[in-house]
Every structure is written in C-alpha cells, then in structure tokens.
C-alpha cells in the first residue's frame, strides 16, 4: 500500500516537472501558434535568475535563516526576467514572423543558440558593448525617424548606422579588454550550484521511504501555476482579450482590442512561466548553459500528446508520461506481472525495459504509437479556435 502511494507520488513528481516546463510552451503554441524553440533557454534564464537571487541572499544571511527564503523571491524574479526576455524576443523577432511557422522555428532556434552562448560569455565588457551598440543604433534610428523623408532613407540609414555602431561598440570593447575585472565572465561555461533551501532538503517519512519536500514543492508550484493561469484567462480582462484575439483577430481589432499588445502579453506570460519552471528545476539539478536543452524535447512531447492549445490536455499528457516513465523505469510494472504466472512473458518483456534509458525509449515508442491513432493529441483542436 505504501509502495503504491510512493509510486504514485514519484510518477506525479516526474509529471509535474514535465508539466511546469511545458505550461508556457503550451500557451504560446496553443494561443499564438508559435513554435518557440528558445523555450528551454527562457527556462535557463529563470534558472540563472534564481542563482543570482540565491547569491544575494547568501550575502544577506547572517546566520538567521534568511537564506532559506530566497526561493520565494526567486520565483517572481525568475518570472520577470524570462517574461522580459520573452517580450524582447516577441517584439524584436517573432512579431515579424507570425503565420510563418518554419521561419519562426529557425529564428527561435537561432535565438536559443545566442542565449546559450550569451550566458557562457557574458561579462561587463560585453554588457557595455551591447548597451553602447543599442544606444548608438537605436538612438540614431530614433533621431532619424523624425526626418520627413524617413521612408526614403531607411535603407541607407540602416546600412550606415549598423556597421558604424557595431564598429564603435567593438572598438570600445576591444579597448577595455585589458581590464581583468570587466573581462571576467559572470557565469562562464561551468555549471553552477544552486543550493536547495534548508527547509526543502528533507523529506516526509513514509515507512521505509521518504518523499522529498523539493518534489512536493514542485507539485504544489505546478498546481498554483495552473490555478493562476485558469484565473487569468477566465476571470481577468486581459485574459478575455487574449481569448478573443485568438478566436478572431480581425473582429477583436475592430472592437478596439490592441492585438499587438495582446500578442506581446501572451508571449511574455508564456515566457514568464518558463522562468518559473527554470526556478523549479534548480531544485533538481544544477544551472548551466545547456539546462534548457535537457527539457525541450520532453516539453514538446507533452504539448503534442496533450493536443495543441489545450492546457487540460497538457496536464493529462504530462501526468501520463510521468507515471508511465516511472512505472517502466523503476520496474514497478514488471513486478506486478511477475506475480501472475500466466503472464511471465510480459514481465520478462517489461524487465528488459526496466532502466531509465530504456524506459525513455519505451515511452517514446508508445507516444509514436499513440500519435498514429490520434494524430492531434488527446484533445484535438476543434476548428480554428483554441480552447482552455
């Protein structure tokens, strides 16, 4: 009995990690039709934000346990950091590519590469150079935009301003390379260690087993996120606007809804959720430039199996994948069949897949088989509208 409870807990534990990672993706994918391959890197930004907050709290801590509270601050900070990054991504890249899924795919993949390299090599030098470039280029563009013949000279302006400001920023950066303090990377390529707060380190004793508090925290966090999203989409004004734009963009625009703002907001919300997921996964592993890559495939699996644009589908899919990964990988399923004499061959077959690697293979095979039967997931989208 206890074993069963532990098994269910573990399965839900794996599922909730998948779900919290996939939530933001499901929203962006479902409501906007944008395949965001940089989702994992937005999670990574959230994880790094958590790392920074943790360091601040470690310095603040004077032995009075303040350190343990960092996670409460880290969650909104991670949300904001990723949401802002998402906002820049949407305004800077994605809004030009709506309705062109292939281009979006490539562009977001490029962004994910850039973000990964950025956290590896970011230092004060790079920050200063980037800020300088932005000030020169966007400042220059802003000044020139006031001129009456702007449309005519736009091409020229970009062709001259872009290399010029790049060169100035590059030279300025190069001139400062001698300064070791400025040139030291903030994070570097190394994986960094985020310490779990002391109050999340133990576990709930259950017979011979212990259910880790950190897993429970992730499960609770996932539930809170779900409730929050539900409330936002169904009870708030902006949620209503988002849903209406998703259903009929032109009609919504006619009725005075700022569709551009709605797009940006939706994308920022999805990205912010990625940030929260990033914060949550620091409880499981370390923070590194590749942390997002470990989750991106799984999150897409959840979204695809669940059915595009359906949060409820994502919940079911994440829990199903989580529980089946656990049952196969831990050998629990094989043990069930072992007790039944006539089904020994099934137990033998399952025992072959009793290993985390092989369980993954099996789960992927099952997903492929499932998608043959229901190509659009558990809850297929009806018509053009996305439902919640």
């Amino acid at each position, binding site marked *: 009995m206890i074993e069963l409870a532990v098994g269910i807990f573990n399965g839900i534990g794996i599922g909730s990690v998948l779900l919290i990672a996939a939530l933001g993706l499901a929203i962006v994918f479902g409501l906007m039709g944008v395949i965001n391959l940089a989702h994992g890197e937005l999670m990574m930004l959230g994880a790094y934000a958590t790392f920074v907050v943790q360091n601040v709290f470690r310095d603040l801590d004077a032995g009075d346990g303040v350190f343990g509270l960092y996670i409460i601050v880290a969650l909104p900070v991670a949300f904001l950091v990723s949401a802002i990054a998402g906002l820049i991504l949407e305004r800077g890249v994605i809004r030009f590519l709506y309705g062109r899924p292939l281009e979006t795919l490539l562009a977001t993949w490029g962004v994910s590469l850039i973000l990964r390299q950025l956290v590896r090599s970011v230092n004060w030098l790079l920050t200063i150079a980037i800020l300088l470039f932005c000030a020169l280029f966007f400042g220059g563009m802003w000044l020139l935009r006031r001129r009456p013949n702007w449309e005519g000279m736009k091409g020229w302006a970009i062709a001259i301003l872009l290399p010029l400001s790049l060169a100035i920023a590059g030279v300025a950066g190069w001139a400062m390379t001698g300064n070791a303090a400025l040139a030291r990377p903030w994070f570097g390529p190394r994986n960094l260690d985020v310490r779990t707060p002391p109050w999340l380190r133990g576990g709930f004793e259950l017979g011979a087993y212990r259910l880790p508090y950190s897993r429970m925290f992730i499960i609770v966090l996932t539930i809170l996120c779900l409730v929050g999203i539900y409330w936002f989409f169904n009870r708030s004004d902006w949620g209503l606007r988002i849903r209406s734009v998703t259903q009929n963009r032109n009609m919504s625009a006619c009725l005075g809804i700022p569709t551009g703002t709605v797009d940006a907001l939706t994308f920022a919300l999805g990205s912010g959720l990625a940030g929260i997921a990033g914060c949550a996964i620091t409880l499981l*592993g370390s923070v590194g430039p590749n942390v997002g890559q470990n989750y991106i495939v799984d999150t897409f699996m959840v979204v695809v199996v669940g059915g595009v644009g359906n949060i409820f589908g994502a919940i079911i899919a994440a829990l199903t994948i989580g529980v089946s990964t656990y049952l196969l990988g831990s050998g629990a399923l094989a043990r069930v069949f072992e007790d039944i004499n006539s089904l020994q061959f099934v137990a033998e077959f399952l025992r072959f897949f009793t290993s985390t690697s092989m369980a993954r293979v099996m789960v992927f095979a099952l997903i492929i088989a499932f998608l043959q039967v229901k190509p659009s997931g558990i809850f297929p989208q009806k018509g053009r509208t996305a439902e919640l």
Partner: protein
Amino acid sequence: MNKGLGRRKFLWYGSAAFGTSLILKACADPNSPTTAGAGANGDTIKVGILHSLSGTMAISETTVVEAEQLAIQEINANGGVNGKQLEVIVEDGASDWPTFAEKAEKLIDQDGVAVVFGCWTSASRQAVKDVFETRDHMLWYPVQYEGQECSKNIFYTGAAPNQQIEPAVQWLLDNKGDEFFLVGSDYVFPRTANTIIKEQLAAEGGTVVGEDYIPLGSTEVTPIIARIQQALPDGGVIFNTLNGDSNVAFFTQMQGAGMDPERYPVMSVSVAEEEVQQIGVDLLVGHYAAWNYFQTVETPENETWVEAFKAEYGQDRVTNDPMESAYLMVYLWKQAVEQAGDAYDLEAVRAAAIGQSFQAPQGLVTMNENHHISQMVRIGQVRDDGLFDIVWATDDRVDPEPWNQYVPETQGYGCDWSDPNKGGRFRLDEA
C-alpha cells in the same frame, strides 16, 4: 508570393554585414594564435592543444587546457626544450567528435605540430585515433578511461581500469559490503566500466543487485532512486559512473530521499575536486572517489604545483586528477624529446618516451612499453571543504593494463610498443 527581400535591399544588407564582419575581424583578439608560417621554422617547436572550449565538455576540458598551458609556460620560462621555445596552437573541438577529427587533421597537416595534447571523452579520442594512426602522428591523452585500446600513436597518462576501477571495487568489497548497484550515464565508458566491474565481482565474490543508465545530461533520476531502494532496502554500495549534470540530480535526490553516505556509500570515478564544487559540497560529504591524484596528496611537488596553479588562475581554484595527468604528460613528452634530440622525429620521440620517469605532483610516474603510465591509486572521501581525505592508497605504483584481465575477450592479452614482434595486442603467454 511576396518576393520579400528585393535585390537592392539584399545588396545593401549584404554589404553592410560583410563590412561589419571585416571590421570585427580586424578587431579580433590579437593574442589569438595565428596559423601563419606553418612548419618547423627552427627556433620554436609547435605543439597543439585540442580540447573542447565550447559545448557540454567545455566545463571539464578548459581546466585541462589550463594545466597544459601552465606546464608549457613553465617549460618556456626554464629555457624551453633543447633550447627551443614551445609555440602553442589551441584548437576547439567544440564537444563534437567530427570537429575533433577535423581539427586534429588541421593541427597535423596545416600547422605542422610536433605533438598534440588533447581529448577528454572516449568518443573524441576514438574519433581522432584514425587521424593520428593514418598520419603516424602523436597524441597525448590525459583522462582516465575504460581501457581495451592500445594505440602506437597515443600516450595515455590517465588511469587504465586496473589503476582506478578495479582497486576501487576491491576496496569496497573489503570495507563496504558486497552488494553493488551500478549507476551510469548511457555511453561507452560507463557501460565498459560496468562490464569490467561485473566480471570482477563475479570473480571476487560480490553481487550486482541492479544496474541502470540514464541519458547524458538527463536530470530525471527518480526511477533509479526507487530501484536502488527496492534492491538495497538496508543499504549497500553504489558504484557511480555518471557524468556531468546527471550527478547533480542524482546526489540531490539521493539526499532528498534520505539515503545517507553511511548506509549508501557512493563510489564515483568521474567526480573530482572540480566536479565537487559544481555538484555542491554538502551533497557529497562522506561519499568516495577513486583517482590517482587528489589535491590533498602530500608531496613537495604537489605543494609547488597547487601554488603555481592558484597563482596563475585564482586562489579559489582547485586542482584535480585529469589536470594533473595533463600537466605531467607535457613534462614526460619534454623529457622524451630531449632524449630523442629532435621533436619532429616522431619515431625517435616515441621510442624515447618509453621508460621516462617524472616526479609528478602525485608521485613518481613512469611511461611503460604499452604507452600507459605506472602510477599510485588512491581513494578519497569528500570532506567539508570540498577536498578529499585520502582514506586508502596502494602501497606501490600499479602497472597499467590496457587490456582488461577480468573480461574474457581480452584476458591474457598485453601491449608492448618497444618490441615490433608484439605490438598493440599480443598473447601474454606466447611472449
């Protein structure tokens, strides 16, 4: 369909991008090694360093590059090799095996280096092995590995399995119990290592109660934890060949599940001082690792080296086994070149390398006929400051056995490059 970019626009953006790239190129780091003037020009010896400076493996391999650079700096400061300064060409394998092969070709064919120091993963070593063998060139490889290989063109200064894994298993059997659970990342090293461990346990009277692999980089280890608790309800030995990020997840969740080092001692063979810092000291305190070198080894050479390393790269840095192997191999190569007389006469350098001894930070090491070194084996326990207490060490140096003597297919085989009749794989009893 909309043409999108017009031709004029394209020309504009194209020329802008081209111009920028030219400017950026002009601004590029003046310290970066150039490839101009390839070939031996008489007063310098070109040496190549080939490691991943980007990608997954960069975390580990950059530290090895630092150790190699330090040795080369020291050698240059002391007058070089045979009166010639060493000129380093660093190439980035980018954690990508085809890139490794490509860069190895470039170092040999274009740059004309006398030797290459490089590689970390077995996959990268195997990728460049062909390159070095077809060109009859020379690679020095610094990381412990799974053995079952003996190339004429590679010198191995990390541990062979009988210099790390086998003594560790024996020590666990003697001190920690005979029920083993094997956990590893899913690739060649853990699988080969676990094959060896299983054969050894079968021969020495231990049992394997479970074995599990997770994909490289995966952080979902819940099923493994559950399987360990199932297989070893009262505790037992865990032999860990996980690499990289998965270690963090594994140790975090072990702690969360209440599996302490007293009941579930973990022996790791890929976790050294550097990794302890990254995984988190408080997760690892009390667990074990087997290496040939720890920063806490007490020799005068080690004291000097650690000091020199910290002075160069920062007081908060730590040294570890692969770094030490990388450091000592540059010196072994230097001695071989000095004996051979000419760094570019690879046949002579290869012959001279065999039998070279060096007083390394870990103690005296000697290059054997099989291109591996004799070295001490140590077992350390992680302590509060992230360094290791050395709890056990071999009485004497262990001679390397590239072909494993527990695995049936390679039992009774040896390797000897000093004798043309024997070569890379010969039967010991026929010799």
